């Protein structure tokens, strides 16, 4: 599986990745000490608040300067830096494996795995907990929790061993099942083409409604929004197997492009309305541009 081979992440690329870190819009409670702000006050140097002294408090945290000025014992509270739970869910449905026969660019699935690997590395580097999932009509594979950079090879191994029985896409079942299994909230990154015949709203809402910090990586192939085939065609859906005969003329193709554009705009609007991040990834885009520029521009990394 060369698409997620560690050869692609050369040392220069990794060193550039190490200058980045995942960014979340919300503050979550962590399990272990790490490098990320949490809701708890703790032992870091970052000032959080003051409160009155109560018996049993650690006298080392009394602010004697305040006592000298106002004569009251005040406890100086600092933020507790904890880890973040980062879940990366990669759509492995048949549509993600589809690509035009004459195209030499990666499939949506291959590109999604590479992006997932890069984001996983970022999380590991930030001492966050990382877990990865595959899904199509349901959850297909779970990587388990990883922490620390040495676990990167385990992530790569998991991504390389993706399930090879692609089926359709059912976002609602898959993401709701994932949401229910998570006891801790955190950052949820979903890489999918969102081509669910039942619609994407309920599936994404299963995460956003459970207070995950959702970020959608919407992956599409250029041939999907700009088809070039013309004439009388018998189109076959690679997921459902359904067929549709069309006469692809300029008018019809124009209507098709408008339809795809409306679909993308709808996704973007939905994410914005539900305070979820949205990144549109084209399979003909440069991988470095996606990770180092697009994600930074759209607030996924900083």
């Amino acid at each position, binding site marked *: 599986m060369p698409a997620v081979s560690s050869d692609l992440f050369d040392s220069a690329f990794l060193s550039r990745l190490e200058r980045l870190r995942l960014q979340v819009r919300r503050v979550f409670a962590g399990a272990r000490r790490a490098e990320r702000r949490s809701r708890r006050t703790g032992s870091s140097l970052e000032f959080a608040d003051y409160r009155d002294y109560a018996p049993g408090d650690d006298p080392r945290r009394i602010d004697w300067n305040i006592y000298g000025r106002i004569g009251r014992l005040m406890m100086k509270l600092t933020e507790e830096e904890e880890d973040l739970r980062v879940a990366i869910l990669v759509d492995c449905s048949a549509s993600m494996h*589809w690509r035009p026969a004459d195209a030499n660019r990666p499939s949506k699935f291959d590109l999604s795995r590479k992006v997932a690997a890069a984001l996983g590395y970022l999380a590991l580097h930030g001492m966050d907990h990382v877990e990865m999932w595959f899904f199509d009509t349901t959850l297909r594979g779970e990587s388990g929790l990883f922490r620390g950079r040495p676990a990167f090879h385990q992530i790569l191994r998991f991504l390389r061993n993706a399930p090879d029985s692609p089926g359709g896409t059912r976002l609602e079942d898959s993401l709701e099942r994932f949401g229910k299994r998570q006891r801790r909230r955190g950052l949820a990154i979903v890489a999918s083409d969102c081509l669910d015949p039942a619609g994407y709203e309920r599936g994404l809402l299963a995460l956003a409604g459970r207070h995950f910090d959702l970020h959608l990586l919407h992956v599409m192939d250029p041939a999907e929004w700009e088809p070039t085939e013309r004439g*009388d065609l018998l189109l076959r*859906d690679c997921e459902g197997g359904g067929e549709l005969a069309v006469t692809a003329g300029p008018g019809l193709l124009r*209507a098709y492009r408008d*339809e795809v554009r409306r679909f993308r705009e709808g996704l973007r609007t939905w994410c914005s309305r539900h305070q979820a991040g949205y990144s549109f990834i084209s399979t003909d885009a440069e991988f470095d541009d996606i990770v180092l520029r697009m994600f930074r521009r759209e607030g996924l990394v900083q």
Partner: protein
Amino acid sequence: MNFLFPAAWAWLGLALPIIALYLIRTRLERRSVSTLLFWEQIRTQSYNSALWRKLRRWLSLLLQLVFLALVTFALTQPLAPWQTAQPTSTVFVLDPSASMLAREGAQTRWERAKEMLDQRIRQLRPFDRAALLVAADPPQVLSGWTASRRVLLDALNRAQPVGEGVSLRAALALAENLRSTQPNASIQLLTDGVWRDPTEVNGKVECVWVGEPQPNVGITQFSARRPFSSPGEVRVSLEVVSRGEIKMEGTVELFRSGQLVDVQPVSLEPGGAWQREWDLQAPGAEEFEARLAGFPPDALSVDDSARVKIDAVHVVRVILVSTPNPYLEAALDALPLVEWVRVESLSGFPDPGALYVFNRTVPPEGFENANALLINPPSAGFWGRPDGAVERPLVSEVARDEALMRHTGFSNVSLDAATKWQKPPVAQVFAESFGDPLIYGQWDDRRHWALLAFDLEGSDLVLRTAFPILLGNAVESLRPSKTVVPSSAPGRVESALEVTAVGDHHAAAPAPGPGAWWFAFPLWWWALAAAGLWLVGEWWLFTRRITE
């Protein structure tokens, strides 16, 4: 309908492989897509219905078959009924007179006539023949009989108006000769009907009329001449005529070598004329120009000005070969612009511009072609030989129309004696005494010599006015310039733009062939053009996926 190449219908057999190819192409091309979601959303588009796909396929096949049918039809070279009709032959004659330069709107009549003729030539069918003449004098044959429209159009492009020197009679006679060489031939004259002599156009000519009557003021006559009595002067004559329905007022300006010398106000009633003469001292060469100014704009501009050039006066040299003779010397002294000298004998070569007067002497060797007036020569020569004497000579006949004898009065001249001469055959008798020549010779454009068969001293001719007039005629005929120099004004008829009333003036002759321009093209050409357009349309539908 006839076909020149009916075997080409076999090309219709190509319809079979075309139909076969369309039957093969009925299978849809299968394509795998990531989803049908978007296609399902737009499946209501009209082209997606199965009925349309079937119709579209049959429409496409029909377009191809019609294209094949059109091309095959063109290859058979069909002939329409009107194309198999009798071929025609037409002699087109263009009237190039000055009145054809009258402007009517944006075009002159000449341009309009050429445009009409261009249209008629383009309407000729491939087997029609035509010839093209311009009624100049002599007539110009721009194209003989030809069926090539390109040749005729090239010839038409070369046609130029000539203004003066128009001869409809000669052109129509030549056209009649051309017409007689072809069966079913006709003559068409493109003219504005402004003819000096309407009898030049006979009934066999179909007239294609150009132009409408127009108001015009123009110079119809402008000339300059040196009076005989005063060669150092120039008499300039001008005539202006008006044709219109209102009174015209303006001025006439006379220029002499570019300098304005006179301005005369002119007021012309409709159809009226204005004439004027100027006497001007002008011994040298001069150019006179008359211009009309201040008149309302009119149709014909070429007659709004006229120019005339007159040469300087020419001094004629006279060599009198004679003993002293007071009569001759006095007469030569009295002649204006004459430089004379008297000699006793001659030698050398003659001066071709001089007049030699041999009084009782004979021209020496080499003077056979000199301008000579021999007065009773003593011996024979190229002028004849003496044959006794004329008995009781009396001037009985005078050829007054001859230039030498003009205005001379010999009726009461008495002659004491005269020599009877046997004149050479080429000589002409100018005056005779009952059959015996008294004055004869050859005085025309080729040679100038004359012989007087009597002595001046033996008659009273020297006392009569006829004698200096005779000498004056001899001298004047040697002057190189004409006495009257006319300008190139178009003329009274042309300037008046008077249309000769012949038949129905505005009933233009029909064009040869069926009449419409598209009939000029063969049917196969139209079929091929339709096939080309059909192909373009089919391609247009194909590129928009309306057909396949």
